[in-house]
């Protein structure tokens, strides 16, 4: 086998950092910042003044335990913090308090992907490069804003179990949906409360050992994650095909240019000289802490999708969408509780018509009440209103609220009655002798013109199939 035709298999592992949705920072009482003026959420601890002592936020530990339990991890009976030493202006202490050889949680699994570890740490400050403020000395300096410094983070590391860019993005979405459901983080990638790095290597198909990996940093959407991994896999394949070797390095993916640039050479960057943080004592989760964390776990998206599929016989894609976007799932299940006769039809209306109207928003924020959607869907099922008319009714209900029957009455959207429909069909037949002739001559598709005329006349208040049947009957077909 020559090098050129050799097939490579990508091997991908993911590291995700999530900012925890606590009120205060990891090791001090400063409130977390949401766009406040720079350096208004700081104190001697997070500014690293001499002699200060960090004290761990109990809620951050609680969230960390929830995440560990949700991912089926083993919780360390006692875990400790380390200092990760590096010199950079985003860290006033010149180290980050993180966890090293004894993290809070190890092992675990989400979907088909094994979790390596979950640990607690603190976020760094933000550097504003002076170029953006338009100052003359811009290029020479940066301005540090310590509001974010010390924000609690959880880092989740997977095993290298992912085999394609698409799998990696899919896993990321599942993890995001899971964390969002748990309420432990805002998981907003654009705002940086969820950040993803990918470790990417390739190996000849069938080979057991791993190739040299590179790290893709901080992609701010799952789409960019997917494209970044694809670009990196292609780069590595080409490099190997040309007889080159992969350098271990950190890369930044530019989604606009589709290009990868090396961020830092590794020579000295990764010499972090970890040692145990002497200012913090071990965390040894008590039974009480574990019970509380377990009790705080809601039904998670993977379990919900499985349940919707099994109990309501929804298609897998539908069940997944209702579970990944839990606000849709909640709306759906509340509606279903009011009327459980049409689970599939109601699900379709929720993920199609309702999402078309609310986009990425929460349907609960509209004037539409879940039981009202259930009533409307039941009316469609009972043929009291046509699907197209019901869409118009839905738009009114979303904007103004109210009752479907009243909206149908007020807007004259009720289904055309047999007698009314019969008259309209008769008129359509009389008005379109050409089409009638073609149908009689065996050109079945000519019936479309007649159906179209009837639908126009009824403004969508009739059912296309029923109209067709009536036309055929009247023509004696």
């Amino acid at each position: 086998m020559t090098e050129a035709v050799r097939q490579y298999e990508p091997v991908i592992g993911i590291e995700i950092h999530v900012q925890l949705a606590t009120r205060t920072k990891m090791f001090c009482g400063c409130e977390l910042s949401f766009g406040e003026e720079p350096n208004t959420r700081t104190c001697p601890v997070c500014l690293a003044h001499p002699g200060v002592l960090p004290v761990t936020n109990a809620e951050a530990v609680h969230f960390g335990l929830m995440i560990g339990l949700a991912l089926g991890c083993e919780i360390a009976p006692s875990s400790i913090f380390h200092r990760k030493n590096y010199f950079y202006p985003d860290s006033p202490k010149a180290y980050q308090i993180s966890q090293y050889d004894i993290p809070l949680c190890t092992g675990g699994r989400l979907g088909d992907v094994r979790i390596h570890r979950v640990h607690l740490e603190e976020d760094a400050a933000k550097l504003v490069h002076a170029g953006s403020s338009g100052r003359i000395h811009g290029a020479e300096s940066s301005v540090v804003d310590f509001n974010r410094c010390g924000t609690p983070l959880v880092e989740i590391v997977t095993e290298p179990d992912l085999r394609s860019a698409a799998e990696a993005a899919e896993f990321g979405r599942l993890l995001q949906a899971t964390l969002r459901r748990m309420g432990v983080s805002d998981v907003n990638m654009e705002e940086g409360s969820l950040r993803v790095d990918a470790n990417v290597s390739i190996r000849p198909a069938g080979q057991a050992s791993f190739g040299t990996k590179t790290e893709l940093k901080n992609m701010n959407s799952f789409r960019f994650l997917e494209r970044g991994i694809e670009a990196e896999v292609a780069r590595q394949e080409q490099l190997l095909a040309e007889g080159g070797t992969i350098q271990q390095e950190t890369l930044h993916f530019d989604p606009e240019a589709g290009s990868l640039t090396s961020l830092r050479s590794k020579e000295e960057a990764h010499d972090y000289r970890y040692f145990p943080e002497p200012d913090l004592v071990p965390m040894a989760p008590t039974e009480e802490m574990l019970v509380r964390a377990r009790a705080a776990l809601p039904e998670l998206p993977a379990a919900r999708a499985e349940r919707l599929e099994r109990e309501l016989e929804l298609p897998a894609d539908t069940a997944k969408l209702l579970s990944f976007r839990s606000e849709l799932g909640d709306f759906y299940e509340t509606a279903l509780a009011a009327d459980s006769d049409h689970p599939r039809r109601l699900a379709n209306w929720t993920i199609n018509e309702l999402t078309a109207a609310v986009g990425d928003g929460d349907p609960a924020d509209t004037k539409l009440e879940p039981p009202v959607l259930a009533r409307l869907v039941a009316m469609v099922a009972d043929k009291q209103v046509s699907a197209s008319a019901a869409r118009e009714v839905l738009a009114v209900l979303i904007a103004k609220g109210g009752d479907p029957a009243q909206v149908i009455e007020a807007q004259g959207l009720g289904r055309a009655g047999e007698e009314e429909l019969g008259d309209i069909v008769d008129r359509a037949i009389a008005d379109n002798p050409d089409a009638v002739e073609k149908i009689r001559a065996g050109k079945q598709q000519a019936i479309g013109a007649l159906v179209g005329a009837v639908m126009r006349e009824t403004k969508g208040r009739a059912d296309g199939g029923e109209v067709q049947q009536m036309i055929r009957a009247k023509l004696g077909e």
Partner: protein
Amino acid sequence: MIDRDQVLHVARLSRLRLTDEELERMPGELSKILDHVEKMDELDLEGIEPTTHVVELQNVLREDVPRPSLPRERALAGAPDVADGGFRVPSPGGS
């Protein structure tokens, strides 16, 4: 034995500038410290957990309750160079 290159490496990581005299002296001094710590290896430490803290405390946690942050002027009071409400630093990209 710590050599001169290792001293230079650690000094660079810590952003320390050593004089020639210090650079001569440090390898020997640092090696002596390590030798001293190495004496521990003479003890039988079989089955003894590494100690990370001398006081036997655990779970010293703080409720997630906000405390007032510093007014910005005070936070910035010790900064050698202030700009745009922040601490101005040499651009790290250049290092």
